[in-house]
């Protein structure tokens, strides 16, 4: 017999959203995940953010799996996370990592919470009696908490803990605890675990006012807060109470609010010569929210250096904030804040638009605090014995943002790569999971197989009889808890209940035995269990039930204490028991009418289609092919490589796209799993996840081919934008950045002979008519070309006319380098664009300089235009072929701009690279890797398990009106022309129930949420409270 292979296990260190995403992706792929976090809870920064642009609300739950969703949580991510393959260890630090490639021994320091969550009954009396009050970290000190506390108000279970530094060990909490959950002398535990791979997702430290000298001149009052603290001031679980934004010092409404950007970042003197990338969008969102929460009369001003709105949809958001919400943007570095005797905050600033100095009072000042990455990177480097690069960050491999250099099996994602927005955190998390999966497949480790227990035949046709099991949770329920006798007696009288058993602790081994015994003997055919943490035991319990001959969907588990106590603050026996009885009854009704659910499996054609043969496309294809997935790579041109791989020799950060592409081309042609189709486009694709059919049309030969595949990745790229502005096309002295770059490389342009060079940024970009987006790479291109000119000819004068220099992240260092090299940056505004005249064959550029406040004329030997990036015009045809949509700017529209950046609404279709939006090469590669991983999750097996709870069609009742097809937000329903009936795609359907409401004949129904069940539940809720009489 072959030796049993170990199950692939990955440690994800850091449970912010990128870590969570990486963990979910790996878990979905069948690997075991250890998800640790040094803080007391999971969720990272996003746990504190109630609002994310562009909706200015929350959408965190959209990061949960779409297919096979029943293996994980199906509730708000703020409560907690659950997935069968993920073990979550909050309050755990990694203290040592031994071993190498594929075999790591990790020492975990599990810090003592002093409150045992397995025993705690969450009554919170301990919190009431605790005499110690300290500032609450969750609300950034705006509120107080006790020494024994709940770290995040939403968490279920509450996961109470004791702050050991604050605790005085007075023992009051121990006295009131009825379950002996508190042990004030509990010690930290050390545990060693073996893992095959490690993903670092710890994020980095944020700049704070207490620690850093350069914040002193700003942090003069409690009313100067950080951007994260402001977020808590806007949250209902923070200090916001409706109507007004209260300033921390005296609770007065804040009517004038200012944001100061780049606090901590872009500061060369403090050796922080980088941009934190997200603070501009963060401030814009907060300013918009301030208007919404505090009323339109609230005055919001953002003082900025460059408004870096470089991501997809960012520019539109900025324009909306300014035009529709009236957020003021002033380009000025404010030097400090003065606290006036009346508590207001005085700031002096220069407004370049009016060219005047102002002194103005504000009620509240928000500091947009950036990141402090070096400490965290140093810590990890020491722990992993990994090298740091010259910037002081963990060195990654040349073309990767994810792979740690020279350390196979070690990856980073999220804000460790540089402060990331939600979208990038998501793609990097998926990409890290992809790289880890890639690595694990080379190790010969196994994935978790679903336990193959045959689902017993359901007793569906028999009359329902429910066995109710109530868990006492050992000692959890104190004297003032639920009266089990009363509750049992009440439930026994209820129609449809066959028996009621009270079990001591169902989660423990003896509880399992008791459950087994009950199921063995029972005459009932359904089981309803009331216990404390339903999601923790659901799977286990269902397996127990299946072994005992129950169809697992005939077993339901609910949160007995939760429902008993919901909305009830003071415990009183009658009330709780009464409430529990009513709640249980409605659950009984739901279960009584519940049909047996069967998870449908989808057969998978384990082949991928990659559209676009540029670097991103080749990356995705190679990533899948090396994992053994056959790939069709389709390119509309006659050769692979795309724009970057054929046109761009070097990038500013030392990458060589052309060389890289030719290397990749070789690998692609050598790989037997990849079939390349050149000169052709996809004309039409039909099918669903696992079985697509695409029609390929070859332009030259006018022939068609049909391909069959299980998933699609679209990586169509883009090219340099076209323009007719500024005299382009009328003179050979007006050219684009790409033309200049090529000219210098080929020797056609001699930089030595140049005296004055003028570059204009954002040509046709970031304006409503034209490219309404930032192309993300032009500033770097301009700086690279300018530096090249300076290198060849230090005497040459290079002027760069810009609107905002978009050197986000560590690209900032090139901006600094350019200024040091004497390149002159001058600002212009969209309303006051430069004018170009040709004088004696040479361009003369006239513009208004905002610093000198005079019109300047620059005669130039050469005028270079940064014309941005245009999407491929083939995107429209592609969108039509696949039934997906384009954005206004003709990029492909992803499912959700924040939480599902590389997926389409339709499962099985993915996008990456410039097809999504313009981005630098490393980001393209990262997204391609992420898209490959999404596809691999489904293509790695012969079938995919979908979900039991999906919508169904009762064909006999269906009149084929097809209204359900139109209303389905996922496109899960379609009309089968052959069978003449409505069919539901089980992978697409998310069981939202829209079809069931729309259907007039009750032909559409969500299994487990049928009309019958809900009607009965309504009845039960409205039933007169019989218990009243019994209790009296």
């Amino acid at each position, binding site marked *: 017999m072959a030796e049993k292979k170990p199950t692939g296990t990955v440690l994800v260190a850091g449970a912010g959203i990128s870590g969570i995403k990486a963990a979910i992706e790996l878990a979905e792929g069948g690997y075991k995940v250890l998800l640790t976090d040094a803080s007391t809870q999971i969720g990272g920064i996003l746990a504190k953010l109630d609002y994310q642009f562009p909706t200015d609300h929350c959408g965190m739950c959209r990061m949960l799996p779409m297919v096979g969703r029943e293996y994980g949580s199906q*509730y708000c991510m703020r*409560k907690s996370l659950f997935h069968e393959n993920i073990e979550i260890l909050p309050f755990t630090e990694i203290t040592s990592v031994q071993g190498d490639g594929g075999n790591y021994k990790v020492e975990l320091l599990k810090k003592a919470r002093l409150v045992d969550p397995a025993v705690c009954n969450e009554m919170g009396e301990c919190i009431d009696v605790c005499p110690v009050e300290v500032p609450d970290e969750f609300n950034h000190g705006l509120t107080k908490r006790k020494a024994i506390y709940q770290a995040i*108000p939403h968490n279920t279970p509450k996961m109470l803990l004791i702050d050991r530094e604050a605790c005085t060990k007075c023992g009051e909490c121990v006295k009131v605890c009825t379950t002996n959950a508190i042990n004030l002398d509990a010690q930290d535990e050390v545990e060693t675990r073996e893992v095959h791979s490690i993903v670092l997702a710890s994020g980095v430290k944020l700049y704070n006012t207490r620690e850093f000298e350069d914040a002193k001149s700003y942090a003069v009052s409690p009313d100067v807060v950080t951007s994260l603290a402001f977020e808590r001031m806007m*949250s209902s679980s923070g200090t916001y109470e409706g109507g007004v934004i209260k300033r921390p010092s005296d609770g007065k409404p804040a009517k004038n609010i200012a944001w100061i950007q780049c606090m901590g970042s872009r500061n060369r003197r403090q050796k922080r010569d980088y941009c934190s990338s997200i603070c501009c969008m963060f401030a814009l969102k907060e300013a918009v929210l301030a208007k919404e929460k505090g009323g339109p009369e609230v005055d919001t001003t953002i003082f900025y250096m460059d408004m870096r709105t470089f991501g997809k949809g960012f520019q539109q958001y900025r324009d909306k904030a300014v035009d529709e919400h009236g957020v003021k943007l002033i380009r000025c570095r404010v030097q400090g804040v003065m606290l006036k005797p009346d508590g207001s905050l005085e700031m002096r600033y220069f407004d370049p638009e009016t060219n005047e100095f102002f002194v103005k009072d504000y009620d509240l000042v928000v500091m947009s605090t950036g990141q402090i990455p070096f400490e965290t990177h140093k810590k990890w480097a020491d722990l992993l014995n990994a090298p740091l690069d010259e910037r002081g960050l963990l060195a990654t491999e040349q073309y990767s943002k994810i792979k740690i250099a020279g350390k196979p099996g070690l990856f980073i994602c999220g804000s460790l790569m540089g402060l990331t927005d939600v979208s990038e955190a998501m793609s990097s998390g998926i990409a890290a999971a992809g790289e880890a999966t890639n690595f694990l497949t080379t190790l010969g480790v196994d994935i978790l197989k679903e336990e193959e227990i045959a689902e017993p035949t359901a007793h569906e046709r028999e009359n329902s009889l429910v066995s109710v099991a109530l868990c006492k949770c050992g000692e959890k329920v104190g004297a003032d808890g639920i009266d089990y006798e009363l509750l049992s007696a009440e439930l026994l009288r209820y129609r449809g209940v066959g028996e009621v058993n009270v079990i001591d602790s169902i989660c423990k081994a003896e509880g399992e035995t008791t459950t087994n015994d009950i199921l063995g003997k029972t005459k009932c055919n359904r089981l309803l269990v009331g216990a404390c943490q339903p999601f923790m035991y659901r799977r286990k319990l269902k397996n127990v039930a299946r072994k005992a001959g129950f169809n697992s969907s005939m077993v339901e588990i609910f949160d007995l204490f939760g429902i008993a*106590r919901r909305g009830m603050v003071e415990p009183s026996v009658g009330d709780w028991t009464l409430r529990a009885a009513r709640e249980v009854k409605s659950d009984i009704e739901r279960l009584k009418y519940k049909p047996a659910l069967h998870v449908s499996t989808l057969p998978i054609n384990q082949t991928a289609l990659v559209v676009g043969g540029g670097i991103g496309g080749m990356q995705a294809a190679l990533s899948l092919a090396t994992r053994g997935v056959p790939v069709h790579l389709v390119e509309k041109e006659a050769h692979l490589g795309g724009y970057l791989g054929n046109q761009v020799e070097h990038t500013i950060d030392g990458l060589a796209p052309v060389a890289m592409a030719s290397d990749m081309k070789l690998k692609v042609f050598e790989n037997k799993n990849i079939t390349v189709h050149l000169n052709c486009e996809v004309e039409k694709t039909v099918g669903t996840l696992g079985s697509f059919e695409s029609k390929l049309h070859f332009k030259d030969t006018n022939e068609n081919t049909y391909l069959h595949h299980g998933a699609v990745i679209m990586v169509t790229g883009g090219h340099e934008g076209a323009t007719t502005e500024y005299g382009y096309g009328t003179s050979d002295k007006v050219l684009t950045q790409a033309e200049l770059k090529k000219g210098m490389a080929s020797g056609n342009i001699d930089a030595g002979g140049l005296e004055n060079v003028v570059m204009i940024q954002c040509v046709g970009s970031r304006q409503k008519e034209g490219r309404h987006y930032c192309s993300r790479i032009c500033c770097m291109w301009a700086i690279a070309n300018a530096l090249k000119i300076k290198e060849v000819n230090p005497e040459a004068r290079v002027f760069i006319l810009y609107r905002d220099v978009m050197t986000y992240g560590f690209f900032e260092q090139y901006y600094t380098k350019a200024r040091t090299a004497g390149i002159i940056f001058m600002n212009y505004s969209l309303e006051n664009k430069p004018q170009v005249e040709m004088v004696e064959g040479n361009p003369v550029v006239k513009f208004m300089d905002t610093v000198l406040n005079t019109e300047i004329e620059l005669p130039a030997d050469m005028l270079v235009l940064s014309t941005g990036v245009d999407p491929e015009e083939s995107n429209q045809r592609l969108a039509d072929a696949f039934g997906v949509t384009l954005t206004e700017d003709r990029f492909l529209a992803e499912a959700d701009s924040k939480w599902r950046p590389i997926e389409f609404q339709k499962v099985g279709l993915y996008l990456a690279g410039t097809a999504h939006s313009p981005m630098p090469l490393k980001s393209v590669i990262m997204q391609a890797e992420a898209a490959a991983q999404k596809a691999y999750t489904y293509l790695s097996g012969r079938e995919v398990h979908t979900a039991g709870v999906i919508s169904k069609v009762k064909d006999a009742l269906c009149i084929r009106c097809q209204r359900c097809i139109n209303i389905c*937000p996922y496109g899960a329903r379609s009309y089968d022309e052959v069978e003449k009936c409505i069919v539901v795609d089980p992978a697409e359907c998310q069981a939202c129930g829209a079809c069931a409401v729309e259907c007039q004949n009750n032909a559409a129904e969500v299994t487990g949420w049928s009309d019958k069940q809900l009607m009965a539940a309504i009845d039960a809720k409205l039933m007169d409270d019989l218990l009243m009489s019994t209790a009296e």
Partner: protein
Amino acid sequence: MSDFEPKIVAFFCNWCTFTAADLAGTSRLSYPPNLKIIRVMCSGMVDPKFVLKAFLNGADGVLIGGCWPGDCHYINGNFKARRRVALLTELLKQYGIGEERFWLRWIAASEGNMLKEVADEMTVKLKQLGPSPLQNMGQMVG
């Protein structure tokens, strides 16, 4: 009139409003027990017939709670709910159920306090209004 305790059937979406209800509970914000919460996956899942059923079986008020526009876990279920509620409100008026008895509210996961406010407000309002004119119609018909 003072001892009249209205019954409110509350259909809460699983993702946002139900979380807010839990949060109100864990934050120890008590809200009136008049609220009889029925968890649904999405506010767009609430069939008008559920609302009618509730009123016919003795509910004095019906509250639907969903995610804020743009937040729906199912993309646009809450918009569907909004459209439907608008129509149903007009219809219910014909049967003597005024719009003050049938509420649709957006309550995000973190808005535990808003949930409490809405629950309090609706309970007070219904206490003033008195029992639903359709009280126990369901049983009469049935």
